[in-house]
């Protein structure tokens, strides 16, 4: 093939004009960004698109979401005001690109009225950005917890649980005033969730008078913590561990073998069953670790929580947060008798004025559609059967969201 420059330029020019003309015609037909859902839903159905992880290291998110939704439907029924609730499930791998693809499919192709989800923080920020472009669809967050999600100005986005900074609400005060920790060194994974989670703890701890002496941010998947443990100053009173899953288990195990005797303050996912059940040798390091989060430990005893345990006997953080989120949506729909209203305003007004006692305490919304919720301070203790578990130390009621979106920090966050 031999192309002359002039022919290429001419072809390109003609092609450009034709394409842009076509685009203008098509654009006038469909309008630009900002369509809405509801195309697939008939008058007698309300379609809810559920976004949850079913691949990758959070693959159990989808099962947890389904378990939570089914529990609510079993107790309350799947019809509201004569309208049947229908569900379209889309699985993601926990990444922002996957969430972006799937949420567009739910809204634009499946025509759902409401989106429930997603699971992870990376997905959450993407879904919120997308929510801004489709104002006619209502979004109810699943379990994603970045601080920024409800500060973006998306009036169609609702979150009925705390953000990752709120999950450490009360722990900073407790560590300083009750445990007597004055100086703390931090170790955490290097991504957005631990930034906010650690930021929530240290902002409170430092405000109480405590000091952050230094911080090691490590990549997710780090297996060797010996070097980091050796860097921890001798004069600190405790070590903050903002690690999760296998990373937390590795750290706890190596803390024992490397002779780290300092007490630990865990991030919200540091002492989950994966970490506590991973290695029998972590016992010495783990016992006494305090942490904060939306899930109470043993000893929490309210009628709502006990009822919840009959519906979901072994809840995890995702099933609990999806339960609270979907139940909130369900109660909102029930309040309007299944009417969404023009631009779904009726439903949104109902959601904004919700005030109900969830399994983990009272839930209301602030002006940014962010939940004002209770938070739990827990401590790792040995169970009677020798296994490790968490026990509820105290409940911090009515925790409100701050306005700081945290990034990586090395000293007390401002």
């Amino acid at each position: 093939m031999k192309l002359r420059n002039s022919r290429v330029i001419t072809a390109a020019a003609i092609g450009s004009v034709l394409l842009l003309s076509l685009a203008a015609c098509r654009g006038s037909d469909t309008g630009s960004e900002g369509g809405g859902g509801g195309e697939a839903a008939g008058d007698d159905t309300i379609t809810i698109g559920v976004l949850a992880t079913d691949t990758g290291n959070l693959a159990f998110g989808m099962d947890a979401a389904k378990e939570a939704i089914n529990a609510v439907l079993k107790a309350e029924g799947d019809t509201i005001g004569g309208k049947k609730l229908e569900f379209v499930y889309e699985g993601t791998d926990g990444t922002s690109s996957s969430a972006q693809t799937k949420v567009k499919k739910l809204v634009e192709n499946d025509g759902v009225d409401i989106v429930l989800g997603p699971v992870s923080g990376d997905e959450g920020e993407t879904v919120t950005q997308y929510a801004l472009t489709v104002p006619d669809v209502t979004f109810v967050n699943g379990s994603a917890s970045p601080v920024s999600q409800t500060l973006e100005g998306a009036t169609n986005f609702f979150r009925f649980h705390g953000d990752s900074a709120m999950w450490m609400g009360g722990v900073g005060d407790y560590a300083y005033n009750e445990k007597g920790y004055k100086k703390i060194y931090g170790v955490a994974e290097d991504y957005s969730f631990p930034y906010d989670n650690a930021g929530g703890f240290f902002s409170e701890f430092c405000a109480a008078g405590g000091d952050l002496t230094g911080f090691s941010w490590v990549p997710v998947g780090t297996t060797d913590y010996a070097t980091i443990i050796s860097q921890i100053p001798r004069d600190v009173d405790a070590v903050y561990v903002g690690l999760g899953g296998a990373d937390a288990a590795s750290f706890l195990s190596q803390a024992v073998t490397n002779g780290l005797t300092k007490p630990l303050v865990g991030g919200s996912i540091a002492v989950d069953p994966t970490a506590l059940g991973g290695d029998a040798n972590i016992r010495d390091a783990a016992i006494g670790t305090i942490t904060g989060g939306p899930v109470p430990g043993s000893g929490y005893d309210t009628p709502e929580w006990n009822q919840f345990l009959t519906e979901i006997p072994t809840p995890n953080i995702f099933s609990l947060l999806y339960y609270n989120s979907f139940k909130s949506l369900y109660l909102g729909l029930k309040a309007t008798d299944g009417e969404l209203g023009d631009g779904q305003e009726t439903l949104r007004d109902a959601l904004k004025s919700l005030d109900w006692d969830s399994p983990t305490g009272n839930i209301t919304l602030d002006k940014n559609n962010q939940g004002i919720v209770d938070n739990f301070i827990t401590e790792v203790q040995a169970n009677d059967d020798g296994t490790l578990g968490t026990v509820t130390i105290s409940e911090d009621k009515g925790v409100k969201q701050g306005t700081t979106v945290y990034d990586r920090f090395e000293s007390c966050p401002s």
Partner: protein
Amino acid sequence: MSTLPNKGEPITTTPSSPASKRRPILWVRNRWVLVGLVVAFAVLFPWLVDRPRFWIPNIGIRTLWLGTIAMSLVFLNKYVGLLSLAQVTFAGIAAYGVGYFSVTLGLPYLLSIPIGILIGTLAGFLVALIAVRTKAIYFLMITLAIGQVFFSYASQAIEVTGARRGLSPILREDYGFVDFRTLEVFYYAALLAVVLLYLLCHYLANTSFGFALQGIRDSPDRMAALGYRVNRYRVAAVTFAAFVASVGGMILVFDRSQVDPDVVSLGSTLDVLIAAVVGGVGSLGGVFLGAVVLALLDNFAQDFTERYQTLTGVIFIVVLLFAPAGLAGVGGQVTRAIRKRRDRAAPPPPEHQEPQAPVPAESAIQKGNQQ
């Protein structure tokens, strides 16, 4: 058609045999008509779908950027014989370039877009300086390693890349005479860029530079003996492929409105490799077929099975087994199968034929080499 002689026999050919009289297969003869039809379909695509706000971004635009990055991989593989797994990295670096200069430094997109493409291309040049000293599996491994190094950097360099949060929002703009915020305008602009890149790849492959690259692919030692500076040609080819990938990165970043480490992850690299292999690593246009298949699987495989990634893997294996040249090579396979069947069914040639004049051995060897 040449035949290998027994030792001592003169080399003969039968130039008038039925096989030599055959015209090239239909779609090779009418390749440009086929390309035209595909482009026409792509142009009409927004008009043919019932839900353009889903189909244009999730299938159309995704196919364009995935196919463009895969095309850069195929260009290197087809014409230089190098399999690079860093093409996604170059696209990502270009995307990060736009994000950094526009989101962090506040430059207008009209400036940050060419800067982003330049940075992606420059990255290709620098990687090539190291990587072209290796070949085959070592080239593949070094490009994969460089890609993973950049992924780690992007995940941690919070001041530059925003770490896991990435850089956002990277929004399309209205320039008065053209409104890129409209999906259709963006789609057509991306399509135009892709068509021009496709033509550019073809054009380049048929210049003396392209022939030199193909010579290097077939026999680098012989080309070096002829005076060609083999590594310089390879560096130039990798740099050009990085430019193509960078343009793909531009389409990607404005499609997603953000750039984060997922863009340059191993998963994204595998997506591009799968698109290239399913489409056909020997076909510049075929990769877009592979990209369409991958985009459709990403969106619809879950409607059929919960194990949708397994389904993608199974389809990948089936294509490798039954269409080693990719979907773009299926037409050729079918034609060959039909001809083989016809040849079998045809009556055998008469036993006594006029002997054909032997073709000089030199000519036959030359033909054999060409084949």
